């Protein structure tokens, strides 16, 4: 039987993931169908009710992949409940009668290179380390480029004169990224699109609103999980800053955080996942005079619930408004929009009163 690999969705990172795995492994890669209501319904149906929302989304995504014939599933583990996703999902999916192999590349948030190589060899015995390293570097670059463009778009999309151009260019870029021939080709495409995107006219007033978005990684990054809250807010004319992305998670974490947290004397213990990072982001956003902070998490996300208290305190001390959103698989979209509108009204009134 031909091996067909699939993995759950998270934002648009399927492009680099597909590129990476399809070059290092002699297997077919199938990108799961885009997340829709059906995915979420499927995921919720077979998940425990009180599990965090990313579990439901990824499970739904996996079911759809398996329905389409995938027989190897890749999952990753993190430093919170995320670390147990693969075991539980493996069991749920096997109980549903699917025949497949689940491979967890990162266990409990620790990147053990030897272990990963062993696992990749399980999929393809001819896997070569040198080839793997080469494509890893290109993939890393690709993720960096994607995140750079996304950072720029978040900062400017609210002030775009002719709407929709930035997103269109970004989608075109992703499409070309998936068919690159090598590092230089990637760089060329990036430069081409970077130029185009920078040249799109934006009308940014000197005194504009700036909002920072922080929170649990999946709900922050996956726009289906947060009703595209980022662009919804940006479209009112707000500059959005978000630190959380895959390049931060995989490559840039820790250094900055540790330095900053030394100043925050109350924070002594790790609380799992990205809770400390979010405290650091909060501090940074407050220090840099942002007009507001939005904290997004999925329901039942324990590390973030713990960090919320600290975030609230930092914001109170610095007099920066903060709002907390908690998303579940069936949160009412209207409620989210009302709160977001009120938040925008609030920060706008504050800005005008300065």
């Amino acid at each position: 039987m031909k091996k067909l690999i699939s993995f759950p969705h998270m934002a648009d990172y399927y492009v680099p993931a597909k590129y990476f795995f399809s070059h290092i492994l002699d297997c077919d890669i199938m990108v799961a169908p885009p997340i829709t209501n059906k995915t979420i319904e499927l995921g919720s149906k077979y998940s425990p009710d009180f599990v965090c929302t990313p579990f439901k989304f990824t499970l739904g995504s996996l079911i759809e992949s398996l329905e389409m014939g995938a027989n190897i599933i890749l999952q990753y583990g993190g430093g919170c409940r995320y670390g147990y996703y693969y075991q539980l999902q493996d069991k749920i999916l096997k109980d549903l009668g699917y025949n497949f192999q689940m491979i967890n590349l990162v266990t409990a948030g620790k990147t053990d290179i030897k272990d990963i190589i062993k696992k990749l060899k399980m999929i393809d015995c001819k896997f070569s380390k040198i080839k793997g390293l080469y494509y890893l570097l290109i993939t890393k670059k690709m993720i960096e480029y994607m995140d750079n463009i996304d950072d720029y778009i978040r900062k400017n999309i609210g002030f775009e004169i002719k709407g929709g151009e930035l997103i269109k260019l970004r989608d075109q870029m992703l499409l070309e990224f998936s068919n690159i021939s090598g590092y230089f080709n990637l760089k060329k495409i990036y430069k081409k699109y970077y130029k185009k995107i920078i040249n799109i006219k934006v009308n940014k007033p000197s005194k504009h609103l700036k909002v920072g978005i922080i929170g649990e990684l999946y709900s922050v990054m996956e726009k289906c999980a947060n009703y595209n809250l980022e662009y919804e807010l940006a479209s009112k004319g707000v500059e959005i800053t978000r630190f959380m992305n895959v390049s931060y998670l995989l490559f840039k974490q820790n250094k900055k955080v540790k330095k900053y947290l030394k100043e925050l004397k109350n924070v002594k213990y790790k609380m799992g996942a990205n809770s400390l990072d979010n405290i650091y982001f909060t501090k940074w956003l407050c220090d840099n005079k942002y007009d507001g902070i939005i904290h997004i998490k999925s329901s039942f996300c324990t590390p973030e619930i713990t960090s919320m208290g600290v975030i609230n305190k930092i914001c109170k001390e610095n007099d920066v408004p903060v709002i907390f959103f908690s998303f579940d698989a069936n949160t009412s979209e209207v409620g989210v929009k009302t709160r977001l509108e009120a938040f925008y009204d609030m920060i706008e009134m504050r800005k005008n009163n300065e």
Partner: protein
Amino acid sequence: MNECYLGIDIGSISTKGVVIDNNYNIITSLYIWTNGNPIGAVRNLVNELKKNIPSNYVVKGIGTTGSARKLIGLLLDANIVKNEITAHAIGTINYYPDVRTILEIGGQDSKIILINSGIISDYAMNTLCAAGTGAFLSSQAKRLNIDINDFSNMALMSNNPVKIAARCTVFAESDLIHKANSGYKLEDIVAGLCKSIVLNYLNNVGKGKKIEGPIVFQGGVSKNKGVVKYFKEVLGTDIIVDDNSHLMGAIGIAILSSKNKSDKIYNLNIKDIDFETKATSCMGCSNNCEILKVFKNKKLVDAWGNRCNKTIKL
């Protein structure tokens, strides 16, 4: 000709309309039940209000707020459509410029708004739970077979409110039944219910918020004297309940509408407007978005619920 502005707050239970002049004085106001039919309720409301506007006034602006704000905004061609949190804050600040905390309990939602020197500094709204809202109060009143208007007087008669689990409506209800069946007096139960609303509100919505005076309590539930009494008791300070506390959202949106006025004059003849909504399920992809199309005089004016523009062409 004098100018006036119409503000409408369409809530889950009741629809509130108010007409104000340039100095934000109320010319006329009306409070009616929504009865699950916001369009019908607004038609009635506007027709009634129109009769009471003196002939030397012209309507220069219409604002809508509340959960049906978008729909009614389209029907009336409103010049401003705003969320209820902002509207409530603006309305209250107009009457009480030094207010610090607004407690608001409506039919379906409850919110707390903190104000610092005339601007909103923080707010919260109930998210998942209906415990501590008017809907819970009215459903319990119905179950106990008490008219909602007698409810507050009955609560005031009691000196010994029963303790009711203040967390969840379902548990609160089973607790109520238990208390009734073990022989507690009706007024003690009613008083306990009012107190549980207060505790639920403070535990849910008011959690982590610094409640400072002057405190203004508004929304439909603020008309219930029992709830007001227990708010005072639990918070340990005096709270202000305005005579127009149920209209604050409508007043706020009318004020916002006056600030946003244009040259347009509204005639309020909505009787002749043909207004229709049609719900369809889009089959474009497996998202199956529920799309609501709004037709005004047989013309498609807006549609919402869609995540893309595949099947909708305006």
